[in-house]
């Protein structure tokens, strides 16, 4: 490109920031947060409707709101934010100019147009098909068109990311290998390309079908390929939020990965085994063999799960090692007790790690077991599980890093600091609550995506146990907590971005605390002397919980009617 690239140097981290990349990061992050606000509002309406004592929306609005909720938060919020993460991890971390900013803006525009189109079509009311849009239920053509435009835009973003990596390598803007966070982002982007290809394979024919050019789409084929997209995209989220964990641990505590080799290998496992993952959505469908289901649902013997379990030790382990190197060495947990719990970036990151593992991770593996899926499929257990992964995990991690992006990239002082300290707890605990209570209701059999658990107007009567009603009431209460946390986040971030005190070119932000790069804990000593007993304890607790919960569910399964 003819125009010369302009850089500034970040006074806090010393990183060289390409101004074009910075603008794109801002735009993507702002749009992401706007859609989080819209989608979150729909989520609150849905939760209030599922609260039996409140039963807020009428049925048609409930299904509309649920469709909009799934689309706006799972796709639009997360993927826009991931675009910001990709540009950050390539251009900013490598100190390199962004390859073709114009293409990046084109991708951004397509994503935005697509998101708006699909939202308008959903709000018109004839497309309440849920974000999965299983055929033969038909939405208006604009519904699929919007999603396709959005996906094409995201694909362009991925290629700009890869292009930037190539430029950085050619122009030698860094020494040796790319940073671990960038490596994680590469994982996410590679998976994204596979994901979007699967999406195109299934959604383009579906669009043609909705306008009458294709006569029939097999529902089983649709569902299988749809989940090759739908599940892989969750692996993008995991890769991205694990990269964000490492980034926050590095920026707030100067933590260094215990072993570059192990952490990178764990990311690689996501790429190698994800194609198999769509199977765990097909465990109770007709027409698949058990061999296929077992091999695929376990991603060939749980090797992608192994990747996550490794990060589950290396992330807190690197934090513990950094804290101990600073002299917080008393007992098992001084390093954790004296961690910066008042720093929203750290608090959000650590809760994201714990909830993702304990709530989202364990429930996901249990539910994805071939036979156990029989007692959970399509119950509220499913949304319970993924609010543990994609909300308490991904969303909370993204919120946490936003507290660093506001001062570093938007160059504004954070406003409402007291509220910011509380925000991750409010949101985290609220979301942990809705996850657990939806899982509880699901264990009692309550259906997901369902307007009336009393079946008041049905031709034949049926009653769920009263404990299920209690669960849904508690779910409503925690949904309000989570929503308050969400609103706080929006107010703090939007307020700061537009009205926060502007930072001068070489001025360091006063909050949240980030040690200067020089204070980074460069060494842990050799591998032989590494001491992380607190992390070993935490991981031990996790493992025991995992094993117990896994076998408890086999016990539940063994109590239902025999079938073969």
């Amino acid at each position, binding site marked *: 490109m003819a125009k010369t690239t302009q850089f500034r140097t970040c006074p806090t981290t010393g990183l060289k920031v390409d101004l074009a990349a910075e603008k794109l990061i801002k735009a993507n992050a702002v749009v992401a947060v706007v859609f989080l606000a819209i989608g979150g509002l729909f989520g609150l309406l849905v939760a209030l409707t599922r609260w039996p004592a409140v039963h807020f929306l009428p049925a048609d609005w409930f299904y509309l709101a649920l469709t909009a909720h799934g689309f706006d938060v799972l796709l639009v919020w997360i993927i826009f934010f991931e675009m910001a993460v990709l540009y950050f991890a390539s251009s900013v971390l490598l100190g390199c100019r962004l390859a073709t900013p114009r293409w990046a803006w084109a991708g951004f525009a397509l994503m935005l147009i697509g998101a708006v189109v699909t939202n308008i079509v959903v709000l018109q009311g004839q497309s309440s098909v849920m974000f999965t849009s299983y055929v033969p239920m038909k939405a208006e053509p604009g519904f699929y068109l919007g999603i396709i435009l959005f996906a094409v835009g995201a694909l362009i973003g991925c290629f700009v990311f890869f292009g930037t990596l190539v430029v950085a390598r050619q122009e030698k803007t860094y020494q*040796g290998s790319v940073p*671990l966070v960038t490596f994680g982002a590469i994982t996410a982007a590679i998976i994204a390309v596979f994901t979007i290809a699967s999406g195109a394979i299934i959604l383009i024919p579906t669009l043609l079908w909705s306008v009458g050019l294709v006569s029939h789409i097999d*529902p089983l084929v649709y569902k299988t390929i749809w989940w090759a997209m739908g599940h892989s995209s969750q692996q993008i989220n995991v890769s991205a939020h694990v990269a964000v964990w490492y980034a926050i641990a590095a920026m707030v505590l*100067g933590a260094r990965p215990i072993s570059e080799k192990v952490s990178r290998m764990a990311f690689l496992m996501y790429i190698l085994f994800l194609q198999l993952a769509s199977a765990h959505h097909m465990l109770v*469908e007709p027409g698949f063999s058990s061999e296929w289901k077992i091999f695929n649902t*376990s991603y060939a013997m749980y*090797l992608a799960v*192994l990747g996550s379990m490794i990060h589950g030790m290396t992330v807190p382990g690197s934090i513990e090692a950094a804290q101990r190197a600073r002299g917080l060495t008393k007992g098992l947990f001084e390093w954790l007790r004296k961690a910066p719990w008042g720093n929203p970036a750290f608090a959000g990151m650590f809760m994201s790690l714990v909830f993702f593992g304990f709530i989202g991770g364990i429930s996901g593996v249990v539910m994805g077991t071939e036979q156990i899926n029989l007692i959970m499929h399509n119950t509220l257990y499913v949304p319970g599980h993924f609010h543990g992964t994609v909300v308490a995990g991904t969303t909370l991690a993204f919120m946490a890093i936003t507290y660093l992006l506001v001062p570093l990239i938007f160059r504004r002082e954070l406003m409402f600091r007291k509220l910011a300290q509380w925000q991750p707890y409010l949101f985290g605990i609220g979301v942990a609550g809705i996850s657990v209570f939806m899982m509880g209701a699901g264990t009692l059999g309550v259906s997901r995506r369902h307007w009336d658990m009393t079946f008041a107007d049905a031709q*034949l009567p049926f009653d769920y146990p009263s404990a299920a009603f209690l669960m849904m009431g508690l779910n409503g209460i925690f949904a309000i907590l989570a929503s308050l946390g969400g609103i706080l986040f929006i107010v703090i971030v939007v307020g700061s971005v537009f009205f926060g005190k502007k930072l001068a070119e070489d001025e360091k932000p006063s909050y949240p605390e980030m040690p200067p790069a020089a204070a980074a804990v460069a060494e842990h000593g050799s*591998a032989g002397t590494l001491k992380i007993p607190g992390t070993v304890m935490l991981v031990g607790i996790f493992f025991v919980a995992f094993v117990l919960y896994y076998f408890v569910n086999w016990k539940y399964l063994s109590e239902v009617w025999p079938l073969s």
Partner: protein
Amino acid sequence: MAITPPPQRIWWKEPIAKVELSWIIIAFVWGLVMFFMMIYWHGAGEQNLSNEAYKITPERFAEKSQAMIDEYTVREENYFPVVHPPAGSDVYLIARLWQWWPILELKKGETYRLHLSSLDWMHGFSLQPVNINVQVHPGYEMVVTIKPDQAGEFGIVCNEYCGLGHHLMVGKIYVVE
């Protein structure tokens, strides 16, 4: 740090710490346990979903179901036929907007070959309060061998979203001694 290139240029030759290696091994072995548990259950467990399924047209499935209904209906309830097929036989359950048709009456401790298919959109067979959940597709006939081991009245909720009447779609199975 994780946001800078690795300080050791040859990072892939650094030794792995013992705690990390132990955890990798434990997690890997646990993965194997979970993998083999599913296979083990196919031999030792009583709850395994069958893989028997056929392609079928909605018309043909409706015909086969109607034949069963004509032969074995014992009474009517709320305009639904209540069908009591012989133990061990093939029983049919139609999923359609927004009904599970007909009501089945089964005997406790006997096995039945339950055929499930949809005449229109996807539905979800959710037997409650037992909590067995199976997806029902149009165009595919799934055959599940079931053995009710409790007597009583059971609900069939639809747990795959199937349009505005989704929450009206409730069916019933009686299990008698």
